[in-house]
């Protein structure tokens, strides 16, 4: 299984490096959204709950762009058939795609957070934010892979991904936004609340197990 996961990740990273599509689109979308909020709210700086809410809603919508593209090469260039003909565990596709999406999200967030800090955020960014980002990214990666695998089998995949991914991500966005809010508060960082981190961890675990249980069936014709 490790061999197949490695092959799939390596292939996706080469394709993304050679013809970058999703990651630049996600970054540009996020920056555009921050600019819109900057003017729509008519505030030079935001903090606390408002800053956290803006950040996570933007990140989720940006992630939807990446989720939409996750299986396109597999669908359009016969990657699914090539993979299904190989003597490998089908779950390796789930693990590989979730890992690739996780890495994309982490890479995109480096630029997005910098843009957020410059365009909107009042207080400075706190290192503890990384913990929340990693936990939330894991959840988005799992749910995104599941939704993308389901949607890619349909003709309405561009519609289906946001329709499924956004409602399923509601608990994750709530927990991530609540966990981040104290870190984005004016006048110094607040404490990271363990219960929201626990909610994020639980979300990752539950959807990880769910994805593991049903992913094989999603790859069936």
């Amino acid at each position, binding site marked *: 299984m490790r061999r197949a996961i490695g092959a799939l990740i390596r292939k996706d990273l080469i394709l993304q490096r050679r013809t970058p599509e999703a990651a630049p689109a996600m970054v540009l979308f996020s920056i555009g959204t921050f600019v819109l909020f900057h003017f729509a709210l008519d505030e030079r700086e935001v903090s606390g709950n408002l800053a956290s809410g803006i950040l996570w809603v933007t990140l989720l919508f940006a992630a939807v762009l990446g989720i939409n593209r996750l299986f396109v090469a597999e669908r359009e260039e*016969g990657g699914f*058939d090539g993979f299904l003909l*190989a003597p490998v565990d089908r779950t390796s596709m789930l693990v590989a795609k979730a890992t690739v999406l996780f890495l994309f999200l982490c890479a995109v967030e480096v630029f997005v957070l910098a843009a957020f800090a410059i365009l909107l955020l009042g207080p400075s960014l706190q290192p503890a934010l990384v913990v929340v980002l990693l936990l939330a990214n894991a959840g988005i990666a799992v749910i995104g892979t599941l939704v993308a695998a389901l949607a890619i089998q349909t003709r309405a995949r561009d519609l289906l991904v946001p329709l499924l991914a956004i409602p399923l991500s509601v608990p994750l966005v709530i927990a991530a936004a609540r966990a981040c809010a104290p870190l984005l508060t004016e006048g110094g960082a607040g404490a990271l609340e363990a219960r929201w981190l626990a909610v994020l961890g639980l979300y990752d675990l539950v959807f990880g197990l769910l994805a593991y249980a049903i992913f094989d069936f999603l790859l069936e014709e």
Partner: protein
Amino acid sequence: MRAIELADLGRAYGERVALAGVTLTVQEGETLAVFGANGAGKTTLLRILATLLRPHHGSAKVLGHELPREGWAVRGKIGFLGHDPLLYRDLTARENLQFHARLHGVRFERVDAVLDAVGMSARADDPVHTFSRGMLQRTAVARAVLHEPQLLLLDEPLAGLDPGAAALIDPLIGGGTRVVISHDPTFRGDLALGLRGGKVAFCERGATVDDVRALYA
């Protein structure tokens, strides 16, 4: 040993029956030639044998394993060449084959060997999207035979190839147990299956060129 055993095999897409009542046996080392006009059910049959589609009716046994229940045991023993080359356009030929080599647990030396065998060594490091139709087909054949499969499932393997390229490919796809879809009435297999509208028009060892031509009339 029986390589393929089909009994009343059928498959539908919604209400439309794509394949029905296919019963045949192919022995190890034999070639099954499949003929039929467009939409006759040839590709459906090939995809069922490749474990990419589930049969809806009857039974299919490939290399001694019941499909789809034991499909996992057959994967990796099949070389599949369909309409699509199953190659990523933005990867080079070598990267594509190395990707499949990793999936199949094949050593990279074999990648160089098959690229050489199909005459693609000189273009091995070019992206697949720069290839002509014939070069794409040659690379796809290299992918299909990369893991030295016991059973080859080939959909018009020589399509788009010039005579020189066809002569290169021929030894790679000849010899073993094969199912070959062809529109060439002169193509000879040990057993010929003619399909018309998803149903068996003939399935015999002594099918003539006229039998095949009648399918397209």
